[in-house]
């Protein structure tokens, strides 16, 4: 079966959802960040697939921007993780609940 | 700047000026605050002097564009109804300030500021002819009162203050929506929005719509009045407020509710007003009896007076709902009378509690032997409150009852009879209280050496007594100038509907004549 646009889009949706699931399933800050990366990648797939469909280059360029943003996010995110780790020698998100209610 | 604007501005700026005075000069601050309020009083007398009592029009009108895109203007003016409420405000404020000279010892500057700010806002409410402006003053007034209760009140002051402000706000915010609604209804009809009372009165609102808008207005005013069963904020607020606060609260603030009904709710929504008047009147009647019965068994002087206000204001609302000249005239007069006599009662209770730091009736007894002068004035004010003819309370109640009897709705006569029983009940609770406090043997040793009225206190209470007698003996001074305005208002409510039955557009509109104020 020839992959249609829809195949790519649905694949992208599946990957995106896996990313969201990762945020809930994992008890590790790094994995949570990884899950967000999965989501961004899924989005990129949509952009590129759409580009192919639209016969345009914009999608690729946007994907490029998204990768950049992902890099920036990763940098800041990891810095925050390091800062957190300094305070409390753990990477479990559930350990950081002093702010609540 | 016209006189009415001055009336608002002078106390406000005076209050701000107080804040700028140096620390530690409490005496001077007290005097300055009194001075400002007296100047305001004189200004209000000038307004009275320049008032044309034969005219039903608004006078001293000032109108400046404010937010023209929204049909909002700074539009003030007075007629016979608001004139006296303004004068009542300016009359009671100096008295309330003077009565606090010794009892308010902390944060004197702030106290003066809030009192004068309150005065400005109250006057603003009474002179506004633009609904937006009215609401601004109406809401702004809550803040100083909140602080007066909350800072200088008694032990449960915080609860009372918050209850006061939330209760009143809860009612008035819906009115705000109704005000906006009607302003844009004006836009839907004429193309431009308008918050101006005159514009809005000139417009016919569909009956179904009137119902909701009227209810929103009526709720706000009913809470302020307070009408049974929206009254429970009042006893708390009264009991906890400092004397000056209680005086203003009872004397003026409550009148804003009845004033609002008369000035806004009824004329703006005549059909709904006529539909609902009987029900409101029913609540008023219930309030008369209920307030009296509950007042009767209160152990706390201020609470007793507070519930008596519920009862008395029930009379006022009843008179308004009658929508007859006598009823409304009586109601307006009763507003003034209640302001004087209940204000006086609170002053006296305040004097007692200044001396003894308790307001429990059981703590007193036999005071007449130690403080004959104070008790004499107490008696006079009590009698004014129980509507002894010849004193201020009678005229209003009598006219209200006369007016209600010929009221338009079905059970008007029954209401009259029940309301008249308030005559008995008011005597019961007031005299019983008076007797327990002032008569009998001097049972409590602590009361033996209480001092009688001081000179300052004479200046506080004497004007009240004088007004009580003056209003009782020469009520026409007040009734004459208000009659044209009262008639006009009734015409707006009743006349409109009567005509509307045949010919919807023919509501006679009150001409707003700009009279040169200066």
């Amino acid at each position, binding site marked *: 079966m020839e992959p249609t646009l829809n195949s790519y889009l649905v694949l992208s949706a599946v990957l995106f959802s896996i990313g969201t699931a990762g945020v809930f399933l994992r008890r590790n800050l790094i994995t949570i*960040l990884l899950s967000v990366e999965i989501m961004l990648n899924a*989005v990129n797939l949509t952009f590129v697939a759409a580009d192919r469909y639209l016969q345009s280059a914009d999608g690729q360029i946007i994907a490029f921007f998204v990768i950049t943003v992902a890099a920036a996010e990763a940098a*800041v995110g990891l810095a*925050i993780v390091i800062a957190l780790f300094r305070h409390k020698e753990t990477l479990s998100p559930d350990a950081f609940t002093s702010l609540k209610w | 700047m016209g006189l009415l604007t001055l009336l608002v501005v002078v106390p406000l700026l005076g209050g701000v000026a107080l804040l700028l005075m140096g620390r530690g000069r409490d005496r001077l601050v007290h005097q300055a605050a009194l001075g400002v309020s007296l100047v305001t009083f004189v200004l209000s007398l000038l307004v009275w002097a320049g008032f044309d009592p034969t005219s039903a029009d608004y006078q001293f009108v000032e109108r400046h564009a404010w937010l023209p895109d929204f049909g909002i203007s700074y539009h003030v003016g007075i007629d016979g109804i608001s004139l006296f409420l303004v004068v009542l405000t300016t009359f009671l404020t100096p008295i309330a300030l003077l009565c606090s000279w010794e009892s308010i010892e902390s*944060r004197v500057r702030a106290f003066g500021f809030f009192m004068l700010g309150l005065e400005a806002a109250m006057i603003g409410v009474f002179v506004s002819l633009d609904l937006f402006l009215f609401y601004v003053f109406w809401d702004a007034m809550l*803040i100083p009162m909140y602080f007066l209760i909350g800072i200088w009140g008694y032990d449960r002051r915080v609860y009372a203050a918050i209850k006061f402000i939330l209760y009143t706000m*809860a009612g008035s915010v819906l009115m705000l*929506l109704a005000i906006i609604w009607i302003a*844009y209804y004006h836009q839907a009809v004429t193309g431009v929005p308008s918050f101006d009372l005159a514009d809005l009165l000139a417009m016919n609102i569909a009956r179904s719509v009137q119902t909701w808008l009227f209810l929103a207005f009526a709720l706000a005013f009913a809470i302020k009045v307070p009408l049974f069963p929206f009254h429970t904020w009042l006893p708390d607020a009264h009991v906890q407020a400092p004397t000056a606060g209680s005086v203003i609260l009872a004397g003026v603030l409550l009148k804003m509710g009845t004033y609002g009904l008369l000035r806004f709710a009824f004329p703006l929504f005549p059909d709904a007003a006529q539909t609902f008047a009987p029900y409101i009147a029913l609540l008023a009647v219930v309030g008369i009896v209920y307030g009296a019965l509950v007042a009767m068994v209160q152990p706390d002087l201020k609470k007793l007076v507070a519930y008596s206000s519920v009862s008395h204001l029930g009379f006022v609302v009843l008179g308004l709902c009658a929508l007859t000249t006598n009823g409304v005239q009586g109601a307006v007069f009763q507003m003034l009378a209640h302001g004087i006599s209940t204000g006086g009662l609170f002053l006296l209770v305040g004097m007692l509690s200044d001396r003894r730091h308790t307001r429990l009736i059981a703590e007193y007894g036999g005071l007449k032997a130690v403080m004959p002068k104070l008790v004499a004035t107490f008696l006079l004010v009590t009698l004014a409150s129980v509507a002894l003819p010849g004193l201020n309370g009678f005229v209003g109640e009598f006219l209200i009852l006369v007016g209600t009897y010929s009221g338009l709705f079905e059970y008007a006569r029954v209401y009259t009879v029940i309301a008249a029983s308030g005559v008995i009940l008011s005597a019961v609770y007031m005299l019983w209280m008076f007797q327990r406090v002032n008569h009998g043997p001097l049972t409590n040793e602590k009361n033996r050496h209480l001092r009688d009225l001081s000179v300052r206190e004479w200046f506080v209470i004497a004007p009240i007594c004088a007004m009580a007698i003056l209003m009782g003996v020469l009520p026409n001074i007040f009734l004459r100038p208000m009659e044209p305005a009262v008639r006009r208002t009734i015409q707006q409510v009743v006349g409109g509907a009567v005509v509307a039955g045949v010919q919807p557009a023919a509501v006679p509109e009150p001409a707003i004549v700009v009279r040169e104020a200066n």
Partner: protein
Amino acid sequence: MVTQADFAAVAPMLMVTLAACAMLVAEAIRRPGDRMPFQVLAFIGLGGAIWASWASWDLHRIGFGVIVADNFSLFLNIVLCGIGLLTVMLSTGTSDRDGLPSGEYHALLLFSLVGMMMIASTNDLLVVFVALEILSLGVYVMTGLRRTSEQSAEAAFKYFVLGAFSSAFFIYGVALAYTVAGSTRLDQIGLHVASAASAPDLILTMAMVLLLVGFAFKISAVPFHMWTPDAYQGAPTIVTGFMSTAVKAAAFAAFVRVFLTALEPLRVDWVPVLSAIAALTMILGTVVGVAQTNVKRMLAYSSIAHVGYLLVGMVAANSAGKAAILFYLVAYGVTNLGAFGVLAALSSQDRPHDEVRDFAGLGRDRPGLAALLTIFLLSLGGFPPTVGFVAKWHIFNAALQEHLVTGQSNLVWLAIIGVLTSVIAVFFYLRIVVMMYMSEEKAPAHRPALPVLAATGLAVALIAVFYLGILPGQLLAVAADSVASIF
């Protein structure tokens, strides 16, 4: 070709960026112990941006094809830079006490302002996304800037994770929109939406939902609000003030631009959802605010509630409603910033001074600050004659006006919920007032000095609160004017 006009259009952003870069340079050449004139740089940059925006009024420049310097953008530029200026002023003193590294703090502040100005001015979803990230990353970092504090780090982390999560949704929305519309430009999307409006396009709808989520997160609308209380509480106080006002203003600007221009034809579709969100936001924000004991957290819930009112303006979405949003943003900006400014002025190195009981007896201790805080709180509560009242009134004005024109009954309900919740909100604002003036308790006295600049900032906020409360006419007109430029 890149022309002068392109640069003129982005001049405000450029100035602020340059100022921020100058700060970084200054920080780099700073020797330990030196103080650098960061405030001066900030004033130059922000002042220049304000001036540049003012000078471009009515010129409708377009820069690089994606930056639209219409009156709407310019208005927001001015507002954002104004907030920035106030923040800089109010930071004096408190930033040292909180141990914020001055150079980086000011630079990040300005950078995130650049992102905000960008997000408010662009007509390209891609730029919206990038700008969103700029401002977000700046704010995440500022949130975590109190590095000795675990709470600060935790707040930054939560804000970051959720922010990244939601911006993934946002960019997915952009992707879907791009898929169906073939462009990320708002005008192109608008054309597509308008032409395809007859046949409801599910993908487009999904794109709309995802974009909505992205914005709703930034403005902290329920149920995308949960980061707000934590981030607000943990962040340095003055940063909280900045976040709650500037970020919100910028995000709302983009929200308005996207949803009321490109997605305007889908209004029937998004109004019900937005109404529900608005109602939930108002209710939850106020109700949960009641139980708070931490003032910053309480103000966070209050800000959530205020978002609800702003959303009512969105739902009304007539010209009055749009102008009302802008006015409200200004009103909320000066008021809330003022309130946080007071809080910040009170915080000391060892005590954040943000629990309600910390305020006990403040009316005697610091009468001036207490009075200011009271006024700001009353303005938040919507009492006349403060700007808060006019702002709320204007929102409800818009709602009811729209109702009378279109007969949308949800607007009436929203208005009723709005006024009732504002009553509840008064309860918790007044709790602080109660503590300051009416409490027998007495918190330990603490009087960090109030620097002149901070005092000036508070005075400016105070004057604005009253001036705009009594004579809002001009600002209302300007807001209406600026709104007219994009619709």
